[in-house]
């Protein structure tokens, strides 16, 4: 079931919502159980057999976590040799191994088999893919739980709350990657079952905005970017402008798609009085790659930092080791996104970016340079955006060769095509240059160039100028605040004149005018839900 479907909006959600608060009036535990059942139903809507995998994973991780927690809390004074295998550390090791094996089998088995067959000449069978939705998300969530239990940070072992923490439908399929310590206490609060109109109003509005972002912007962008990448997959060679259009449109599509899902998840959850962590903080306003990763998919970055980068040693063992750790973290982060070389390269590229960024920061500190003025920040922001766009080309392309073809196009190696209307005006001056043709801005895919330019401009304006969800609803605290941001506020990038407008007009207020605006937006969005359009991050 998709958030952007009529069945979810008009049937599933109202039933779950009213059911939860009705049951919650009488019994808190039953209300939690109701939410668990609803979440499993939501998950099983795609494929019932996935529910079995999810439940098995939950039972295994809860039991192991319970055992680990029990032993960490009360370690035996003398440990017999026969019980070494049940020591917390061993249990943790085996539990993580089981989780990673399940994830590896479902997600990566075919990748390894294909590559071994290709490079080592083996004949391993390529099986049919059985990839339960959201497996990467619920596996990571539970690994974090196990590690924290081992470290003695987990205090609550209520099975219903644990199951709800893992299965909670707003986040189950595509995150945010939740942390038990920010969720379980919220589920345990008695007033979670009491209807809170503040949360309903804010949550409803955030959900509508997220829905509009997905349906009106992300899906529209997909109509332009997908044909270009598909044409490249089929052997086409995009020329300069078309390649840039494709790359930029995908850059925006991915952001609007994924952040829309996060917004919808945050909005839905808020209506149940549960605050999810923020997942995006205007990432394309970042002025460095380090800044970008503090703003993009923040909960995944947090996970990678806390459970991979820091355990690897973080920055504690010298610069070389730090850079190596960064690279390993980003390569694995890339691989987490998908079983393909393009994802690994994307991760590696970002690892390299981060290393260069740290080297640059170190150099600046050594030279005692300051951050520079606004122009320098603008340049840094543009360079960061460019680096991110190049990375997304690998992320989106079906193969490395397709990505390289796109990048060739972006640097003009496949020639330049201008609008046919310009041929009469400037064509005669360029007759001798065979790299220049006048077949339109999209000679490969031929969509309406005006619309492509309009949607691109609109998208860029939104990501660069407008406030994000958290800023719009700042005074209502729609997200939990555990994720460390450490970024500059979006306003700081705005010219002085815009800052005034920003603070006056871009703070959501619960008034009649906004209710009307949201109602119109909701209806327009609903009317556009005419096709099944899954979220990009479902595949991860």
């Amino acid at each position, binding site marked *: 079931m998709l958030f952007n479907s009529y069945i979810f909006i008009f049937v599933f959600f109202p039933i779950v919502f009213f059911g939860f608060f009705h049951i919650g009036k009488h019994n808190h535990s039953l209300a939690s159980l109701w939410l668990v059942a609803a979440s499993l139903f939501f998950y099983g809507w795609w494929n019932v057999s996935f529910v079995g995998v999810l439940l098995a994973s939950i039972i295994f991780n809860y039991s192991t976590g319970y055992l680990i927690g029990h032993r960490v809390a009360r370690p035996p004074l003398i440990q017999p040799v026969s019980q070494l295998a049940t020591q917390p550390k061993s249990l943790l090791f085996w539990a993580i191994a089981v989780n990673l094996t399940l994830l590896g089998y479902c997600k990566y088995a075919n990748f390894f088999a294909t590559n071994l067959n290709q490079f080592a000449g083996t004949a391993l069978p390529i099986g049919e893919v059985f990839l339960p939705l959201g497996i990467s998300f619920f596996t990571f969530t539970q690994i974090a739980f196990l590690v924290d239990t081992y470290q003695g940070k987990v205090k609550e072992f209520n099975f219903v709350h644990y199951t709800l923490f893992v299965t909670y439908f707003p986040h189950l399929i595509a995150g945010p990657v939740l942390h038990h310590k920010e969720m379980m206490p919220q589920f345990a609060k008695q007033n979670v079952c009491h209807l809170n*109109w*503040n949360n*309903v*109003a*804010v949550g*409803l*509005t955030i959900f509508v905005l997220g829905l509009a972002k997905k349906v009106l912007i992300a899906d529209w962008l997909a109509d332009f970017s997908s044909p270009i990448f598909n*044409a490249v997959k*089929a*052997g*086409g060679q995009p020329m300069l402008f078309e390649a840039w259009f494709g790359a930029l449109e995908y850059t925006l599509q991915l952001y609007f798609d994924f952040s829309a899902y996060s917004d919808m998840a945050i909005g839905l959850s808020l209506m149940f009085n549960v605050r999810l962590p923020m997942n995006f903080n205007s990432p394309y306003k970042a002025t460095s790659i380090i800044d970008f990763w503090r703003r993009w998919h923040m909960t995944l970055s947090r996970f990678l930092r806390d459970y991979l980068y820091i355990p690897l040693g973080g920055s504690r063992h010298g610069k070389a080791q730090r850079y190596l750790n960064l690279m390993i973290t980003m390569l694995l982060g890339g691989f987490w996104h998908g079983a393909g070389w393009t994802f690994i390269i994307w991760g590696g590229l970002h690892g390299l970016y981060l290393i260069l960024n740290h080297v640059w920061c170190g150099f600046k500190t050594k030279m005692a340079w300051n951050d520079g003025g606004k122009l320098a920040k603008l340049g840094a922001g543009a360079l960061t955006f460019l680096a991110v766009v190049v990375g997304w080309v690998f992320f989106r392309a079906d193969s490395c060769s397709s990505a390289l073809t796109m990048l060739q196009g972006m640097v003009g190696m496949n*020639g330049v095509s201008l609008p*046919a209307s310009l*041929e009469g005006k400037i*064509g005669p001056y360029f*007759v001798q240059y*065979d*790299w220049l*043709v*006048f*077949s339109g801005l999209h000679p*490969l895919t*031929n969509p309406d160039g005006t619309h492509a330019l309009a949607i691109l401009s609109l998208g860029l304006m939104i990501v660069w100028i407008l406030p994000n969800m958290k800023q719009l609803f700042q005074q209502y605290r729609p997200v939990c605040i555990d994720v460390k941001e450490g970024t500059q506020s979006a306003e700081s990038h705005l010219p002085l004149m815009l800052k005034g407008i920003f603070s006056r007009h871009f703070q959501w207020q*619960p*008034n*009649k005018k*906004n*209710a*009307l605006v*949201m*109602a*119109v937006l*909701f*209806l*327009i969005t609903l*009317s556009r839900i*005419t*096709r099944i359009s899954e979220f990009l991050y479902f595949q991860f």
Partner: protein
Amino acid sequence: MIMKKYSIQFILFSALLFSIALLTNYLIDPYRIFHKPWVRENYYVPEMRIQASGIINTEKFDSIVLGTSMADNFSPAEASKVFGQKFTNISLNGSSLAERSLVLNYALEKKKLVNVISSLDPDTFDKDSITGTPIAPYAYLYDGITSNDLQLYASDPTILRFALCRNILFTSDMLCHDTRELEDLTEWHSIKAQKERFGGLHNWLTKSNDHQIKAALANILKSIQVINSGQAKAVNWAEVARETSKNQQVFTDCLLYYAAKYPKTKFYLFFPPHSRLRYAIMKQSNPQAFEVYLEILRFVVRESKRYENVKVFGFETELFLDDIANYKDTTHYHQRFNSKMLYWMKNGEHELTTSNLDDYIKDITTRATNYSVNKIGDQINDYSSGSFIRGKNGMAEIMDDPR
């Protein structure tokens, strides 16, 4: 309290605006799904996959033309005159046989049809269901349940534009300049950009940015390469049998089924007379596709013989197919041939029967074999060596077009 008020306002505004939009659309009913015009002028919207349902619901007729763009130019008035019945043309551009069967079924259930004229475009026999076709989102308009037809007016805000268009409050047609009269609802022959492409190859070449022309030129040049290099793939008869079998099933399910169910309705089925160039390209560069086509011809004629109410027509022995000036691309013929076809079908000329089929196939095969595709290629190259296409690879650029 403010938040509660806001939430309720949001829900009420949503419900109110939704109801107003739905009521307005119902009142205007631009596609006449529910009623004839009450408060607006009489017009029709040429989105035929929707409009066909409205025409069936609210218009009076007893005969239909239901084909692809090959049948778009049949004039309902002329068909009515020729056949002596009341015709309407509800052809669906680029439709598969499966799509048309959805509409045909609906029309046959709602009306007592006397005649059905339908084109048999062999390349539209390949899909056995409407899944993924352009009519799929509107299938509910053809399920016989009136109440769910309201979805149409609840699902597309752009339909509200008709509220500001040629009605008792607004006289402007700015927002509905695409509307038409019933007589010319489907035709494309009067559209300037289409009309200009008839008259000869040079008229195609001057419109080389048109996607149909691009595809046609690319197809011609690629075929010439195959023909001249002698690399045309040999016929694999097993594949021919497999493809034919699927096509036969689609034809049986989507057309003959209705002929059997409605024996009083006469079905005039015709194979559209594409240009000889197209058949020659098929025969000379892709003989397997040509054999599949011939197999479909044989099957259609053989099976249709079992039904007294089905007549099959083929016009490929006509000489007009040889002259590219009668076509706006390799497939679409001039509307005067639609007119002629009406008379031929009414008079039983060019009817294909089991007794004349072998001669017909022999004749059209010979014509397709002897037609010189190279001659057309030479003309294209002569033209392009002028100033036709400027680019790094000249005509090769057309051939590289991935579509």
